[in-house]
């Protein structure tokens, strides 16, 4: 009688252990995240077909400066903070009309800290983060990517240098925007810089700095406030970000 009970108890215990092991194995099987870079995983074992989950395509627009932080003071009435906000609003409308979901870090003349801007962008799990600036020097549009050295993607990224895991993708995004601006005959200067909050963005990120257009052999001079000049840049940015929707998932 006693031996039969012991056998039953042992079988029950073994059954429970097997159940726990299978539950743990099932918990480790998380769905793939297509917007994260490949971390060198081993080839997947063929399994039952799963339903394809389309990753959400979100673009973050970060209008620089705000409130007492006026940025560049072009004249008594023209400030960088107003130009970037106006451009951000117009670009959001253009992107939304193309069915692209947009998250903005600043919607009014308010002071938004670099930390809050970084948080907004990183919570959005965006496919592209565009930080908007304006300057009085140079000509055309300056496209800047982070000067941080590229690093492999890890689950936990240091806040100050989170962008380092996305530098390669950011360079490709910058190249797409540059090509689109070239199509509308806006001169482009490419560069690398160290800029907050861009260095904290955990997404492909580009700083777009708009400068007045200096007249040349093929270009006609245009100030920053020129609506047709702004429209050209808006059209190019919209085209580039629409194209990026098809390209960004192909990133390694």
């Amino acid at each position, binding site marked *: 009688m006693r031996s039969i009970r012991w056998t039953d108890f042992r079988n029950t215990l073994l059954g429970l252990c097997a159940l726990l092991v299978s539950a743990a194995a099932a918990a480790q099987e998380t769905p793939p995240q297509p917007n994260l870079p490949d971390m060198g995983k081993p080839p997947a074992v063929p399994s039952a077909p799963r339903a394809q989950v389309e990753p959400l395509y979100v673009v973050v627009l970060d209008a620089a*400066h705000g409130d007492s*932080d006026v*940025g*560049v*003071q072009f004249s008594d009435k023209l400030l*960088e903070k107003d130009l970037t906000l106006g451009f951000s609003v117009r670009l959001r409308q253009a992107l939304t009309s193309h069915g692209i979901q947009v998250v903005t870090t600043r919607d009014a003349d308010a002071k938004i800290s670099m930390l809050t801007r970084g948080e907004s962008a990183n919570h959005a799990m965006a496919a592209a983060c565009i930080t908007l*600036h*304006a*300057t*009085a*020097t*140079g*000509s055309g549009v*300056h496209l*800047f990517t982070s*000067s941080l050295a590229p690093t492999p993607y890890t689950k936990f990224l240091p806040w100050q240098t989170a962008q380092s895991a996305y530098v390669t993708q950011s360079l490709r995004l910058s190249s797409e925007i540059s090509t689109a601006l070239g199509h509308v005959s806006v001169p482009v*200067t*490419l*560069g*690398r*810089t*160290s*800029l*907050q909050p861009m*260095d904290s963005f955990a997404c492909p990120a580009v*700083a777009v*700095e708009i*400068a007045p257009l*200096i007249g040349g052999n093929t270009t006609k001079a245009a100030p920053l406030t020129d609506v047709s000049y702004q429209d050209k840049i808006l059209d190019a940015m919209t085209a580039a970000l629409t194209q990026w929707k098809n390209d960004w998932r192909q990133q390694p």
Partner: protein
Amino acid sequence: MISRFQRILFGAMLIAAVVMAIVLLRMRERAHDRLMRAAESQPLSPPSTAAPVERITLLVANDLDGSLIPVERSFPMPKDPNARARVLMQKLLEEYAAPKSTHPIANASGVDEVFLMPLQQEKDSNTTGEMAVVNLNGAFAQAQPSGIEPETLTLLSMISTLHTNLPQITQVRFLVDGQQKDTLAGHADLTRVYLASDTQTAVRR
């Protein structure tokens, strides 16, 4: 009665004393002449102008295409690396303050001091060379045109000029009036350490 021997001895001692006095006076005169000659040989001009004229390369920023253009100049350069680094920065800012500059900044005396410090060799790290700490003054930061491109070019041209002429400088930090500042004029980050290798893409050969 004084003996003949004592008279001769006294006479000899007197002659010796007179000779010794003459020799001493002569030696004093010679020592005085030597000191006078040494004083006359001291340089009358300041050391900077006495320094040998050398060819230096300034990496001058160009706002129109966002590049750094190597420009060669000849200046008397001091031997001390700290003083040398300071002169390099001074000459670079003079280029920016000049009329028709490709990167105008209306302040030619923007660098208060440059300090060179050896980098600490860490385990599992191959960092070598020296770090230059460039102390800018507040007036220069005020005069700096605001924007990502102009600010970035100012910093890159300084880093590149230092590294080109003093290759032992591999890292650069910037202070304003001796304090850490978030940005140069609202954009370029001054809280980080810049590597000399950061500037390679901007230099136009």
